[in-house]
């Protein structure tokens, strides 16, 4: 078997995390990874390091410490202003070869996947994609990655004996963030920058960002399916009343009623709300995957045999257009009277 560029014997006892950031904020998944890594590192007496890449990102260093990293490896340069795989790849490679971490984790975001996919090949090491859990095998001191396949029906536990770093991208929302502690401090290491403009072949020519939708953070989620017949007005109204968010399934996206980033399911968002209210959803397998982690599922559907009822805690056989407006009215009255 081909060796990785460095192996287990040369590893430093540390877990590294790509600290994705945008407009002077960390991506939530990066903070979630710090918390999980802190937990694993504390079991073993290891270090947690954050890799901070960008242009004008020094201001984020104290925040990284406050969330629990011991070291920040920073690359701050105008050519790193927006994500481009050549420059980000070169800087990350440089840092990893100098720090030789045992574990290197990225969020399973578009940029995290891009970077991890390339770096794993460059380092000749293994990569577990879109992990849903991570833990350390305390006996062997090898990282165990849980990967969900086949739409969540099967979980595979994956390990790597000798190749380093042990790489994984982790699905946003599976770990919790910790509360920041402003008294925490750590060490800053500047990564030497081997950057020249001519090494960059891909560039961002336009960027259009509107209101960000993050369904993974919603505690109350109202989800409308085909049975809503495009009437998302009442779905939104109920979501607003519950101070939650609204979401959808594939058919309303295809029909243009709702934007794709609000789609829940295997090819959409995996959410974990306290309450998911499924309105006019039949309950296809691909959708159910997205609400498995909901604490309580309420389903309303006219068809008493709809599969959704097998996956719901409270089931109502009836018309969404009758029950949702009635529910909105009742909830509004309760709110007013309290």
């Amino acid at each position, binding site marked *: 078997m081909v060796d990785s560029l460095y192996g287990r014997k040369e590893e430093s006892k540390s877990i590294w995390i790509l600290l994705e950031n945008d407009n002077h904020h960390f991506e939530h998944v990066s903070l979630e990874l710090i918390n999980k890594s802190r937990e694993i590192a504390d079991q073993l007496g290891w270090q947690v390091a954050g890799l901070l890449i960008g242009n004008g990102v020094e201001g984020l260093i104290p925040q990284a410490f406050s969330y629990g990293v011991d070291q920040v490896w920073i690359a701050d340069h105008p050519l790193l202003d927006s994500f481009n795989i050549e420059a980000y790849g070169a800087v990350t490679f440089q840092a990893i070869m100098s720090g030789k971490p045992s574990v290197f984790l990225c969020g399973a975001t578009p940029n995290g996947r891009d970077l991890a996919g390339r770096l794993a090949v460059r380092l000749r090491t293994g*990569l577990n994609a*879109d992990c849903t859990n991570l833990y350390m095998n305390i006996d062997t001191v090898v990282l165990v990655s849980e990967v969900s396949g086949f739409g969540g029906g099967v979980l595979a*536990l*994956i390990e790597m004996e000798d190749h380093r770093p042990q790489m994984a991208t982790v699905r946003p929302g599976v770990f919790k963030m910790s509360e920041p502690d402003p008294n925490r401090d750590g060490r800053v290491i500047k990564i030497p920058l081997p950057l020249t403009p001519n090494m960059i072949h891909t560039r*961002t020519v336009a960027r259009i960002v509107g209101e960000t939708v993050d369904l993974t953070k919603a505690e109350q989620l109202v989800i409308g399916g085909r049975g809503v017949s495009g009437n998302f007005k009442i779905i939104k109204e109920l979501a607003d009343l519950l101070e939650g968010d609204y979401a959808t399934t594939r058919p309303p*996206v295809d029909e243009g009623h709702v934007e794709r980033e609000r789609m829940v399911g295997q090819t959409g968002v995996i959410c974990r709300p306290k309450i998911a209210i499924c309105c006019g959803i039949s309950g296809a*397998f691909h959708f159910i995957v997205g609400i498995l982690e909901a604490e309580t599922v309420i389903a309303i559907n006219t068809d008493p045999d709809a599969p959704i009822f097998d996956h719901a805690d409270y089931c*109502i056989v009836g018309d969404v257009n009758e029950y949702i407006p009635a529910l909105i009215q009742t*909830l509004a009255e*309760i709110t007013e009277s309290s």
Partner: protein
Amino acid sequence: MPILKMAVCMKVVPKPEEIRVDTKTGWLKREEVRSEINPPDMNAMEMALRLKDKFSGEINIISMGPMFFADYLKIPLSMGGDHIFLLSDKNFAGADTLATTYTLSRAIRKLNQVDIIFCGEESSDGATGQVPPGIAEWLNISQLTVVSDITVDIPNRVVHGKREIKGGYEIIEAPLPVVVSVRTASNEPRFMDYTIKSWAFEEGRITIWNKDDLQAEQEFIGEEGSPTSVSKLIQAPEKARKRIFLTGSTEEIVSRLSRIIKNGA
């Protein structure tokens, strides 16, 4: 030379709803399970076909797997592809991301001067969305990932891809050759074209390449070339739901429902 030489990497996967883990052996029960082309790969095929419609060119379907994949691969071929290259060799079996991307990249090198390599965003059997950047790294070329649309400027040999990011999108420019991963469900794959279906199902549309054809090094392929190993497979626990049907008048049900929502029970 065709105007655009394209490759589409495709995979045949078991239908996810039929997959079960054998509780005795801890392995997947693959028998009796129906397969399909990994759905995101059909979006990749459609994107390639639209470029072929526009500029003319050739589309080579590449897949790594056992011989039974061949029948499935004739479906995208019947949509308007030109040829199938099936990378089939027992030495390729058991490959993880590193070995898979190496093997696919060897085939793309052998095809020679491919302008665009399309992949689906992920595969349903392991969701390894890391294959496209891995191929790009082995080939030392650019990558454009999770794009829902692309335009190609042939004289200047650049592509522009619309890439979805949180809350919006960005337009990324990259030079040819490039690996493009296509956003799942970003287009509607066309049906088979029945005027070419009989052609597609004729002998000679498939070339089988083994390890020697690819001049692939043993230490990089299959199980041997895979640093990771699956230590355990488990059936995901199904969360037991209460399945309580609320009955009564609309008012009674709504009243009960509002208490559940407010109090969590």
